[in-house]
């Protein structure tokens, strides 16, 4: 009973801290997935070009990103980027760069898999009609691949919402940092933790439902 009371009390007093945190989380996730998708598309093109040295580099890149913990990647960019660039970079900017790089590797794989999942017969039919490679991609393969890719991209956005909690390590303003902030003010740990957790749960459950609905609608047109 005490816990519930504490939660209600903390929420009524510090709700703006949590809502600001949520805004930060959603904003960082959206920016990350947007640029991650752009970069991921470029990587996917690199891979699909089938040019030997490029595809090898792609393999290393994806292997490196997926083969190391994301927290380590965040530390790396946080430490290295301010040294490498002659700019004043905020923690948030360093973290976003790291998340974009991380996300791009996953997005590239999503796009690659989405394109390769299109039946090879479609490629053959397009070629037999004399379509150029470009037209085949734009008018036959990609429109079909999009149906595989879009739901997976939405899921990438959802998982990014969870990944951004790691940014709290660098005191970037987001939902997990909100918990830490409120904890340090109130000296209570569990209630703000639960509040942050519940906000994540509500948002992610809602978005997952939306993706399922969206996926269902894509299926219908199959």
């Amino acid at each position, binding site marked *: 009973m005490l816990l519930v009371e504490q939660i209600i009390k903390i929420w009524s007093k510090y709700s703006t801290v949590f809502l600001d945190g949520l805004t930060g989380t959603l904003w960082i996730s959206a920016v990350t997935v947007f640029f991650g998708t752009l970069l991921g598309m470029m990587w996917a093109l690199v891979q699909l070009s089938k040019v030997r040295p490029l595809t090898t580099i792609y393999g290393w890149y994806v292997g490196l990103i997926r083969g190391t913990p994301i927290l380590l990647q965040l530390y790396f960019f946080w430490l290295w980027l301010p040294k490498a660039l002659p700019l004043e970079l905020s923690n948030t900017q360093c973290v976003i760069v790291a998340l974009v790089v991380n996300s791009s590797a996953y997005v590239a794989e999503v796009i690659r898999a989405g394109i390769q999942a299109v039946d090879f017969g*479609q490629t*053959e*039919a397009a*070629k*037999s*009609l*004399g*379509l*150029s490679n470009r037209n085949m991609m734009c*008018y036959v393969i990609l429109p079909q691949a999009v149906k595989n890719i879009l739901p997976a991209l939405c899921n990438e956005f959802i998982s990014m919402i969870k990944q951004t909690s790691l940014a709290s390590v660098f005191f970037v303003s987001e939902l997990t940092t909100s918990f830490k902030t409120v904890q340090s003010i109130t000296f209570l740990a569990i209630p703000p933790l639960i509040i942050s957790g519940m906000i994540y749960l509500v948002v992610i459950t809602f978005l997952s439902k939306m993706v399922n609905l969206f996926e269902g609608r894509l299926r219908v047109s199959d």
Partner: protein
Amino acid sequence: MTKDAKAILQVVDLHKQFKDLEVLRGITEEVREGEVVSIIGPSGSGKSTFLRCLNLLERPTSGQVYFQGVEITDKKIDIDRHRQKIGMVFQHFNVFPHLTVLQNITLAPTLERKIPKEEAKDRALALLEQVGLVDKQNEYPRKLSGGQKQRLAIVRALAMEPEVMLFDEPTSALDPEMVKDVLGVIKDLALSGMTIVNVTHEMGFARELSDRVLFMDEGVIAEQGSPREIFGNPQNSRTIDFLSKVL
């Protein structure tokens, strides 16, 4: 087919190797304008691979393919331009599921031959009329039966006004009651003078409509002749053996 009709497709010493497996082991053959050629033979004999080499969907390991006198196996030529004149119909239809029936047909002519949309549509409708699919023009392929999909695939290829049509077992994936419709369309096409190369298991069809039948076995053309010769009086022991199993 007149006797001195020009060769439209010629292959010279065609070989195709997949890893350790030599699928085509030296084929030299030609198809003349207006000719209907059926290719028969046991599965794994290389019939489909041979057909797919004719428009370079499969690149031969060695040997040359000539289309209208031009060597299309030459890496420097624009293969897309030549493929536009070589129609192909697949066993599994391969119609474009994200496009309507009409869009399936007009896509390649409008993109690659720069035919105005309206004109391409009129032509597509005329073709659909011929195969009895006009009322399906705005449907998506998922609403079509197998036989309808294959008829769509045929007119999609015809919309490019090809000089030759390649059929790769066009009725093998169809329910029996659909086969007749599709064969009817191919028959009309043959009677209209189209040059056709047809890989088939439909022996009745091969016998009735072909000018020439090629029997393939183990990567070579083991025997060839008129349908009367091949079906009536086969010489090669493997041909005899094959026909005894399928007829």
